[in-house]
């Protein structure tokens, strides 16, 4: 639910970003009058959609990794390694929240040029992304402890297993 909302919000962000850059080209080339907010605006949207999308990627377990050791190890060993990985990701997610808030505090009184808003807006995506990354990682840890097959995505990519992905269209969404 949260994950779907995050993904759709990020998708909407990408569409709006497309519109903003197109508007920038249109204004400069056709109207000969450039808006100064489109560039910083598009960049800020991009950092939101990256963090939202990356958090969803954590939940769906499709971040790029080097998982050769995971193939060699027996199932129990894999579980331990995945658990360590999740704790590492959780540490980073919590760091994003804690230090993201420090950055928000540090830049609260600075005003961003062109947008005219507080510099803290630059770092809010870090905090927001951190919250989602932490939530989704805790979810994975809890589900794994409860015995749910949260590491299935991993098995898909193993050398002997058949990859159950049919059209190229599904691929761009899940790998690389």
């Amino acid at each position, binding site marked *: 639910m949260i994950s779907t909302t995050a993904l759709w919000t990020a998708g909407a962000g990408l569409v709006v970003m497309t519109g903003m850059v197109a508007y920038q080209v249109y204004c400069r080339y056709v109207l000969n009058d450039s808006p100064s907010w489109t560039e910083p605006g598009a960049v800020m949207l991009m950092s939101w959609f990256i963090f939202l999308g*990356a958090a969803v990627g954590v939940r769906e377990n499709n971040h790029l990794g080097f998982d050769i050791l995971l193939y060699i190890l027996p199932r129990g060993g894999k579980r331990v390694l995945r658990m360590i990985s999740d704790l590492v990701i959780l540490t980073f997610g919590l760091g994003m929240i804690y230090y993201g808030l420090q950055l928000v505090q540090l830049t609260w009184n600075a005003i961003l040029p062109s947008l005219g808003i507080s510099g803290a807006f630059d770092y809010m995506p*870090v905090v927001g992304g951190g919250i989602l990354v932490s939530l989704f990682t805790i979810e994975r840890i809890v589900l794994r402890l409860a015995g749910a097959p949260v590491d299935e995505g991993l098995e898909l990519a193993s050398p002997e297993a058949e990859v159950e992905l049919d059209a*190229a*269209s599904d691929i761009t969404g899940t790998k690389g």
Partner: protein
Amino acid sequence: MELWILFGTFVTLMLIGTPIAFCLGVASFATVAYMGLPPLVVFQRLNSGMSVFSLLAIPFFIYAGDLMVRGGIASRIVAFAGSLVGHLRGGLGQVNIAASTLFGGISGSAVAEAAAVGGLMIPQMKARGYGVDYAVNVTSMSALIALLLPPSHNMIIYSISAGGKISIADLFTAGIIPGLMLAGALMITAYFVAKSRGYPTEPFPGFQAVAHLAAVAVPGLLLIAIIFGGVRAGIFTATESSCVAVLYALLVTVFVYRQMKWEAFVDATLGAVRTTAMVLLIIGTAAAFSWLMAFLRVPASLVAAMNAVSENPYVILLLMNFLLLGLGTFMDMGPLIIIATPIFLPVAQAYGVDPVHFGVIMILNLGIGLNTPPVGAVQFVACAVGKISVWRAMRSIWPFYGAGLIVLGLITYVPALSLWLPSVFK
């Protein structure tokens, strides 16, 4: 000690299978904490590293690629390529490469290209009795053509990493001959491999059919002219051209081909978000990692070490090619360009190498790294489409690596291959 913590944490986490983005981020986090620096700097670099206008080219080109696959542009280009070269030995392999070359001219991303052309070609090749490993290797290697032919978001990243003193328009132009050379080398390789394996050819459909298929593919192919012409004519910047590609792909697929349905649009959008979020998160955490390397003075030591080995520019270039190939094996292209350009470019320039030329060398070199495990996004996509393991593809990829390396060697030591065309446009 700091460096041991930085690299030690990174390698350990990578070995246990932690996603690369978090390996880079947590290794930086641990090192900064050990050094007693305020850890907020890691998260500042994470955010600043990805908050760069020029990086918008990545989501846009990947998005455009997704739309072209789902909206019928890619399939028409493949059909056209098939009519052109299908009658050569190993017909569908040649079609694959020709389609990659055509599609590479409108796509800015090798990953999108492998997914697009591979998704259409690999199933056909399988059905016609081609070895899947052959189909996968032809797909993954010819996807690299997209990196060299304009547009190319990696060239934009390179120019920005070099401090913006390099003309992106020149870089785009400089990649054309090397891109076509790679296409040629792969076609020759595909020919000989096909011959030794006894693969069939396709019948030539006749000039009328070629003309018809060309006409159908024209709306998609026009994007080559729009992007190259638009950037050269100063209508939009190279970064903005990626957004133009999205709009044009939408326009053609919705109004000309009328194939883009709402569901496909949503899928393409969400797919692009998923892919780019992953790539850009790595770029962000790589920015934190490279900030620490700069803070710890790694680039300066590396340059000193390289100068100590030799003063001969040919040896230096060879050395840099080896280093880049090694790094490219273990790291993703985007972050690596950002990390490596400020380190290697000044050295190369000190030995008289033109920055545009060096950019082309670096793009092809790191591109080959996209096809080497353990970190090889393009190869992973091609293997996933072909439903084979990376290890199986690796067994028969060597002739294709050979073709790539020969082209890399030629480009490295014959600067005119890169620099002649831009000088013509000046």
